[in-house]
């Protein structure tokens, strides 16, 4: 073919619907994330406890097996407390996953000046954040929301409709607790990634927000003889919300669930403002 005929031709292949363009980011981000063998192994390991829990639920209702050890079905109580403890364990793993995956989402785009390349296309800032957030969101949901709902479904199917009807609030608690955790972790991961462009430091910051917040909150509580330090302890705030959703709030909690909601919402708004401030494409007038 002659050279002069190799002129520009517009792309004629199928176009992604404008409504779902943010999923393109997710697709490529997943490829990049699972290139790391360490992350892949870590992610798979997050399903170890849910698998054990499924076996446990099955054995707990298996009459013939339990008869061999002289027990009746349901000898261990599966209630809101059990699901709450399970959620806590999975949420810790979700936090660690956020520290490793989150920084790699936005920081490289900012450090290498790739953000204008994204935003020069028919692709809004909101879609960019949504696409990147969805990467973290789907990973977190896959190790918290889905295993917990699966366990709830398995327990309901093993025990019967009466148990399901009586404990429907646990399902609601699982759903809303996991969604809250997802939103907080997504915003934390993206904001730290945007705030510190060095991936390693951003990851350390995600861990430090939990550890330092807890520690500093305890310092304030200890020194000032107050319980207001809990407002800085993100882990405690999320746990208070989950405890309330699972209807396990103690009689006289140091901070009320409503206050915990208010503190978490304030924290999320601050993170959103940080993301909004950092994810901007600047025009340099020459």
């Amino acid at each position, binding site marked *: 073919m002659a050279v002069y005929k190799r002129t520009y031709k517009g792309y004629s292949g199928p176009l992604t619907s404008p409504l779902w363009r943010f999923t393109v980011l997710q697709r490529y981000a997943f490829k990049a994330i699972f290139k790391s063998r360490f992350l892949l192994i870590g992610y798979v390991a997050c399903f170890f406890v849910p698998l054990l829990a499924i076996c446990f639920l099955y054995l707990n209702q298996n009459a013939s097996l339990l008869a061999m050890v002289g027990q009746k079905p349901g000898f261990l109580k599966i209630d809101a407390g059990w699901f709450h403890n399970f959620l806590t364990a999975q949420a810790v793993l979700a936090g660690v996953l956020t520290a*490793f995956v989150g920084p790699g989402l936005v920081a490289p785009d900012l450090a290498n000046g790739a953000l204008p390349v994204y935003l020069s296309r028919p692709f809004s800032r909101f879609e960019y954040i949504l696409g990147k957030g969805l990467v973290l969101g789907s990973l977190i949901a896959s190790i918290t929301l889905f295993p917990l709902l699966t366990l709830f479904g398995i327990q309901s199917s093993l025990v019967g409709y009466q148990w399901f009807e009586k404990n429907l609030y646990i399902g609601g608690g699982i759903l809303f607790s996991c969604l809250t955790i997802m939103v907080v972790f997504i915003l934390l991961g993206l904001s730290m990634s945007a705030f510190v462009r060095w991936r*390693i430091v951003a*990851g350390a910051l995600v861990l430090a927000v939990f550890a330092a917040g807890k520690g500093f909150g*305890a*310092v304030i509580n200890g020194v*000032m003889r107050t319980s207001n330090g809990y407002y800085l302890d993100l882990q405690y705030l999320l746990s208070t919300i989950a405890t309330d959703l699972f209807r396990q709030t103690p009689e006289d909690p140091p901070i009320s669930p409503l206050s915990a909601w208010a503190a978490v919402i304030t924290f999320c708004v601050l993170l959103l403002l940080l993301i909004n401030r950092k994810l901007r494409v600047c025009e340099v007038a020459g």
Partner: protein
Amino acid sequence: MMTLWNRQILAIMRIDLAKTFFAKRGLWIYLLALSPAVPMLLHSLLDRHEGNSDFGQDVQIFAGIFQFFYLRIAIFFGCVGIFMNLFRGEMVDKSLHYYLLAPVRREVILVGKFLSGLVASVTIFCGSVLVQWCSLFCHHPASLLNSYMFTGPGASHLVSYLVAAACACVGYGSVFLAAGVLFRNPLIPAAVILLWESADGILPALLKKISVIYWLKSICPISIPSPKGNNSILNLLIFDVDPAPARVAILNLMLLAGFVVVWAAIRARRIEIGYGSE
């Protein structure tokens, strides 16, 4: 007369100390180190007016904060920031090749960088211990403070806290420096070490001696009484049923640091720069 290696180490320290102390990137380390002093100062200011402060309780609170927050969180993350930055930070800034191209042995570069990190961390964290001590106790009557510091155990307690903070910098610093040399993403070893150190309370006696925090807790002068309520996780973080003698603890931490630095120095001979992959 100074040997060549000493002069080279001093030159590296001079460059790195300026970077560690005055870098904008390291501002958060100062904030982390001084963060406990803020509520302590507020407590002093408020209680001076209300007059309901208990000296014994303040001593216990200081001990609790030092063991629970300062050693485990502030110094830990501070050392992550300072010591991992010594090599990984140079990689990110694409400036490590200036060191490697200079006619200096790799081991000398590593020792110089370790010493500069150590001087910076010890200055920041031991300085912060002094600031916290003054902030918490400044509102008590001078006669009480004098008797506590000079006729009571106050001075020896303060020295123990300073030694524990310095030993924490030596122990964690050496480990994170080695992690910075050995791993491309030092966050992975940092997270593993954090988990290991957090699990120290539930480890068997032999395994807990492999952690840094066990030896640090042994240097601390006051054992914390069990807090009210059933907060078992907090109990695991603070208490130790079988502390080692302080001298043995200090010696072991120095040996650990020496071993890790020598090992890292040997590994540093094979450092290869891959700026593109950072």
